[in-house]
């Protein structure tokens, strides 16, 4: 079944097609949610919401451009909405405390994707969101400020702080 046929079948609400669509794309979508979420459980919730949104908004996909790209954007939007709700999450800027917490989880075995994900998850939601949008999604500060309803300078400050913490985590990792 081609991607287009699959999407059309999903539009007809065929359960098998819907499950197939999930099976094909869930791991890529989950990787995005893991980047934005604060842990795996949080990411799984984001993933669930993302797919529900994908299916309910499927008819808005116009078969222009990549379907995977469209789905990824839905996932990012969903994750942003999730992170808006966690504004009050307390966070320490104490790198050593963060390192302690993370070393408890034994995450720094190597610099593979999963280690990097763990580092992202140490960041507070705001820093993590801005870093993802800027470094991975390629948005500009102007665009990020519009999406998140923050000022450009806040976006820049948060990016700076995110990078600083990530740098400290990477340095610490290299030293070990």
């Amino acid at each position, binding site marked *: 079944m081609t991607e287009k046929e699959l999407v059309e079948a999903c539009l007809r609400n065929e359960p098998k097609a819907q499950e197939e669509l999930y099976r094909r794309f869930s791991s890529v979508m989950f990787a995005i949610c893991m980047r934005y979420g604060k842990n795996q459980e949080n990411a799984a919730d984001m993933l669930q919401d993302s797919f529900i949104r994908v299916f309910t908004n499927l008819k808005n996909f116009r078969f222009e451009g990549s379907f995977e790209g469209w789905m990824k954007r839905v996932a990012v939007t969903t994750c942003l909405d999730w992170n808006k709700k966690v504004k009050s999450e307390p966070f320490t800027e104490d790198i050593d405390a963060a390192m302690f917490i993370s070393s408890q989880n034994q995450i720094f075995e190597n610099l593979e994707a*999963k280690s990097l994900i763990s580092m992202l998850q140490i960041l507070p939601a705001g820093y993590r969101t801005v870093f993802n949008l800027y470094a*991975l999604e390629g*948005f500009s500060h102007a665009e990020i400020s519009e999406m998140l*309803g923050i000022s450009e300078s806040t976006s820049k400050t948060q*990016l*700076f702080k995110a990078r600083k913490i990530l740098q400290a985590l990477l340095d610490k990792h290299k030293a070990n």
Partner: protein
Amino acid sequence: MKEDFSDIDKLFREELSQAAFNPPPGVWESVSAGISAQGAAVTTAAATKSGLLTVLKSYWLWLAVAGIATVVVLNTNPDAKVGETENKVEQRSKQSGEEVTVLPDNGVTTDNSETDNTLSAGASDNNRIENSRPENSNRPAASESGSSNQESRDKSISEPKNPVSIIPHHPHHEPVKNNSPATGNPQVRVKECPHSLVIQAEMISNRLVSFKASGFTGPVKWDFGDGHLSSGLQTQHEYKDETSNYIVKSYSTSINGCTDSALYPVSVIGSEAHALFVPDYLTPNGDGLNDELKIEIGAVKDYNLIIFDSNNRPVFTTSNPNISWNGKSGIRDCDAGAYNLVLSYRLKDSNQSQVVRKRILLKR
């Protein structure tokens, strides 16, 4: 001085942008249940439409709020920014051997572009996340260079010496012509002017803090530490971010050419902004300056202050925010030296106890 972070972005982008992780089991079952529930409700078309509208509406709301806020700031202080810029240029140019790449026009340009964006944001912009963004687009080079400038600026203004602590260890007063504390350079007074500018702050609501400057004649300008500026003897500002520390800075130049500035730390912890200031030292010599360790804090409950000497013996304790330590333990004068302060309190509407620890100096 400038740190290079391009490798970090690249590392994360290369490792993660194409990453795939298997989700935990059970998610599909929830999704499946979710979509069949939605399918059962009225028609899926209506459900979808309203869902999308909610998303669009919320972006509109954000844009509208940001737009109004920006317009208000710009309208009320058109020349505050210009003055601020000049001030910073002057400040920078006085520093020999310091890199002068940082401040000048950034504050102004950033604010302008922000306004343009918010004012020109039309209906089409609302769709940009979902529709108009080309996949894998490269970010514009201009924004990168802008950001590094801005970061240096933010660092020099708002980053405490020790970003770890709840309360940044800043002197209350800081002559404008000095280096900012973040540069770590020793203070050099250019001109002998009295320190008299004082900031009073008060929490109005969780995130809204009002500031008042007194003790100095001259127009007062404000930098709230999060990129927003203002002017006037009295002003207020709403902090939008999550947990972060800011240094509010006010500065003024009097007619006889004296400049003075004062700093006031604001901590946003969770959803609340804390306006509090703990001095670095006290000098109880009866000259009226820093005779007492005057902690400035807004309306809080369960205030409790304990000061320990170097042997960890408590020398002073109070639960009244209006009582300051005068350097005595009972009737005995304490020796000069370092003391540790532990301050705990709760915000009026919160059950969460905040604890602040700080090392202070008693000078004689």
